[in-house]
């Protein structure tokens, strides 16, 4: 009987694919032969969610498996399939997928994949004005070569040089938050009110755009914000600078009630990416809207003490600075699914703005419930997951140049 993979959202049990199918009868998703006797797994009962099922990788032919593996090998370990892998695929078909990918994660090319993955997400490589834009990629490569959790990409206390040697992250902040506390990230995502930096965190590590669901990021109170961001409509707007609906319209509060919390975390980082202890977050009276003095950006907050402080909120939790916020982000239930979606987009060349079916993406990382997996574990799980494999295999191939 087939191998099968079950994600049991209802029972909270993951039946890891790779288990021998003989132990799982009937195969999930296959019509229950006895409608009078509901299967407790596939027919969980009224008011309960149906259990997600997947096809078995063992049903793939060697040709299908080879085509899939040939597509991903160049990205995951930056080389061609070797003779041994081709032979194993011929012999084992889809069953060869997981062990082969697992072996790739021990190769040097896998570190290159991690470097390129994060480099492209953050658009950071090279050097300019004395700033090492390779620091984010270096950290990714170091994490890929270790068993450390991938979430350290935003929580690591050290950065690394091109040789993998430990070095300080270069903003000068009295704390670290992995790639977030590199000048490469800060400079590359510079902008008024620190909106670009906040947007990047949300887009790259949470796969969301503002406004996000309030259950994830509760809006801050209107009274905390400077007047222009309190408006929910044109009639509400009292700040003459915003009377014409600059930016994205008149409903400022909808997005900025959330933007404000995340942008505040960057209030002490100037446009050159340096941490400035005495930053005030106060709008420069002679400067462009959203800019403070000395290359710093203005805060959303109206109270001076709030504006000057790095204290803010991340996903509803109060945090004292960017480092604490990054830890909340890394521990959140959205971090791993977003990583999976990003990986799928990267390896298969999908439009980075394209959203994938949420339940499918969630299934690829469901096995890590409560864990902090390494990059190798995530890549192995995602690219050997039947949902990913079958999605790719059944996609229509390009017929002509």
């Amino acid at each position: 009987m087939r191998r099968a993979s079950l994600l049991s959202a209802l029972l909270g049990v993951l039946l890891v694919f790779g288990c021998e199918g003989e132990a799982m009868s009937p195969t999930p998703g296959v019509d229950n032969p006895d409608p009078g006797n509901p299967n407790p797994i596939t027919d969980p009962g009224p008011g309960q969610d149906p259990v997600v099922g997947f096809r078995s990788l063992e049903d793939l032919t060697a040709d299908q498996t080879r085509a899939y593996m040939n597509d991903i090998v160049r990205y995951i370990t930056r080389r061609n399939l070797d003779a041994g892998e081709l032979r194993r695929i011929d012999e084992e078909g889809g069953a060869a997928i997981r062990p082969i990918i697992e072996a790739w994660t021990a190769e040097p090319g896998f570190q290159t994949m991690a470097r390129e993955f994060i480099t492209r997400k953050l658009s950071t490589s090279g050097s300019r004005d004395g700033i090492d834009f390779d620091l984010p990629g270096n950290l990714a490569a170091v994490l890929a070569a270790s068993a450390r959790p991938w979430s350290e990409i935003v929580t690591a206390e050290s950065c690394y040089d091109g040789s993998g040697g430990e070095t300080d992250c270069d903003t000068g902040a009295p704390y670290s938050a992995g790639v977030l506390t590199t000048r490469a990230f800060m400079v590359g995502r510079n902008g008024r009110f620190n909106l670009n930096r906040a947007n990047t965190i949300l887009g790259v590590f949470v796969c969301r755009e503002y406004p996000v669901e309030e259950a994830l990021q509760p809006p801050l109170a209107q009274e905390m914000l400077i007047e222009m961001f309190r408006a929910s409509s044109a009639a509400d707007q009292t700040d003459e600078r915003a009377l014409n609906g600059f930016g994205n319209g008149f409903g400022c509060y909808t997005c900025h009630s959330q933007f404000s919390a995340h942008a505040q975390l960057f209030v002490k980082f100037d446009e050159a990416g340096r941490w400035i202890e005495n930053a005030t977050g106060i709008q420069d009276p002679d400067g462009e809207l959203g800019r403070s003095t000395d290359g710093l950006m203005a805060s959303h907050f109206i109270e001076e003490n709030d504006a000057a402080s790095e204290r803010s909120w991340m996903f509803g939790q109060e945090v004292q600075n960017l480092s604490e916020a990054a830890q909340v982000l890394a521990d959140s239930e959205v971090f791993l699914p977003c990583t999976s979606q990003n990986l799928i987009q990267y390896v298969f060349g999908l439009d980075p703005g394209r959203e994938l079916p949420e339940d499918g993406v969630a299934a690829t990382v469901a096995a890590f419930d409560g864990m902090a997996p390494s990059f190798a574990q995530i890549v192995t799980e995602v690219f050997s997951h039947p949902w990913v494999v079958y999605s790719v295999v059944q996609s229509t191939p390009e017929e002509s140049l």
Partner: protein
Amino acid sequence: MASGRPTFRVFPSDLKAKEIASARNACPVGASGALHRRRVPLVLLAGALVLGACTGLIDEGETSSRSPGVNTPNPNANVPPPVANEPESFNVERTSRVLLPFDVRLARLASVLGVDSDAAVLSSVRSFEADLGGHDFANGISPDLSWNASKMTLWVEVLQPVCASTEMRDQFPELTTATELAALMSSAYGREVATTEAEPLATDLASASYGIRCLTVLSSAEFVLR
């Protein structure tokens, strides 16, 4: 070569008109065929496309309607239907072919030569990373994975010293017979290429030099594109 952009010649120096004709014939109908029909007057462009757009699909007969450069069976065949409650699939829409990332192409070259990517023999390639689709975000250079005439021409140029290298000769002393060409294609493409598949190419390139045979394989779509 490594110190500056290579001087563009109409064709690599060791190409003769006869060889070019052979190389052209070795390419299937496809990008290069369409080019001929449009009679693009730029010899440079034509040369680049003849060599660079050669798809690796070397049989104009039965296989010409298949995906260029991808001699693999249709992966859609015999896929079992989704099971109940299976999440909706995503589709990998590939409406156009794009270059493999620069470092992947470099690694594939290194693998063919049996060297590391930082080997001296590949310096001509590394020197033009930015022009060949690499990135340097700090200085405003994003990855450009389009496969266009200028990249094709440059790719052929930077491959010349690679194909003329002792490392290449050590790995593939001759590229005359179909068996020898199949060995190079297998190494380059990461799949087993049968001698019969290489035979038409060997025939078409019968009078071509070692260099043009090497360039034909290493600039084919199957080698550089996904």
